[in-house]
């Protein structure tokens, strides 16, 4: 039977940051090839998931891309409010990764 693991436990790096004042970028990175490939191949991290977790529209998810050389998956979304603008809640965008923590990834049992 397939088991699952939390993304937070599988990832070496799970972070968020501004990519310019109007975009928020989420990086999920792994320190071994096997874990990276397991997560990448699972297909769990996709546009639909991001829309659901962050409650954003598909057109506001700019990228969901994997980068093999860095064993990384990057997700970039539109910021709800521009960095430092009225109503912004995280000027550097550094604490917006939390919804990804509990994403469950199927792993070989």
């Amino acid at each position, binding site marked *: 039977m397939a088991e699952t693991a939390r993304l937070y436990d599988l990832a070496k790096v799970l972070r968020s940051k501004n*990519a*310019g004042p109007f975009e928020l970028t989420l990086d999920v990175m792994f320190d071994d090839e096997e874990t990276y490939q397991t997560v990448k191949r699972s297909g769990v991290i996709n546009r639909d998931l991001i829309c659901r977790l962050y409650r954003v529209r598909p057109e506001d998810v700019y990228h969901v*891309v994997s980068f093999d050389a*860095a064993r990384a998956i*990057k997700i970039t979304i*539109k910021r*709800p409010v521009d960095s430092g603008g009225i109503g912004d*809640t995280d000027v550097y965008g550094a604490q917006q990764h939390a919804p990804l923590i509990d994403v469950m990834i199927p792993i070989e049992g």
Partner: protein
Amino acid sequence: MLGYGFPEASFRRGLGRRPDVIAVDAGSTDAGPQKLGAGTGTVSRQATKKDLLSILAGGHEQRIPVIIGSAGGAGAKKHVGWSMEVIEEIVRERRLAFEAAVIYADIDRAYLHRKLDESKIEPLGPVPDLTHASIDGAIRIVGQMGCEPIMDALDHGAQLIVAGRAYDPAPFAALPIRDGFDPALAMHLGKILECGALCADPGTAKDAILGYLRDDHFIVEALDDSRRCYPTSVAAHTLYEKSHPYILHGPGIELDLSECVFEPQTENSVRVSGSRTRATDKYTIKLEGASQVAFRTIFIAGVRDPILIENIDEITQGVADQMREDYREVPESDYQVLFHIYGKNAVMGSLEPRGEPGHEIGVVMEVVAPTQELANAICATARSTMLHYPYVGRKSTAGNLAFLYSPSDISCGPVYKFTVYHLVEVDDPCELFRTEYLKLG
């Protein structure tokens, strides 16, 4: 990052490797538009001076160029001037001497009006189209220079180059590109070096880092014994704060890093190869301009009562409604009353998928209005309204808020917004940037 500090020992170790250039990035738009708008910096003068003392002394003794990018933080004339004062003070005190170049990044408004009429300006991301009014309304507008103005200053024999707003990798990449190295490798190396040792593990922007550029690869070496560069840490930094992991846009250049290979070189250094450039059909410069849009007043308080916490959304809504009533002479569109409920959803706002509050919550109430006086007035009324606001089942009838400070209300001053965040197409990469040459010391 200039002003973050670095261990003198690792900087000296780097100098011992006989580098060809010392470069440092001093800027960022990370902290929002207020540094550009207000003309202030992110780091203190004292911290900047301390870092510059080492850097200028190092450059002087090794007879190698020192290049500072985005001087003073936002890289406008005011920020560059601030940096030059510190530099001149050091030059005097330490009896140093430099042939210096100061490259200004402030953009002439008449130039932008003309470019706008020629349809040579487009938005960069989700910003409205540029208008003549937004050009005139911005407090200051800077352009993010590429390598070319810095290369030009090097050609003029400058040993110290203080550049206004610059593409972060440019101060690192300008000298090698001028000397004929592959621009893709030079820019990629610059992208990694510009945050100091953030590409090492443990990462920090408070340490020096060394790059070796060769014909078909580069090497990044950690300089402090407490950290090492690993292929994963260097690769990780490649995609740091970037929209896309391996396509990076810069002035006149587009990097494609999809085929990069990151390999261990020694136990504390990494070899990178395979960085490529893609041809760009036009040369564009990023424009940044900030406008003042409001004034802000806040208070900070805590809430511990469980029934009060349960009702917090109704209470904050009630307070905001009451303000519309109390200030009905002020147009509603003129001001905003915002609540940040820490312990519930203050960090993520509309992006927060969970909503259950903790056993205590923090309340930051914020009023933004066209004048400081009005922001103060509404904040004071809203504060007293919330303090005594009635709700169903209330038992703690003496007061709703545990204020952190007395006085409770804090005037925060002006609020800024990036009203210019666009790309302008140029004929010459240097046409926006004015360079002054001077002899220091």
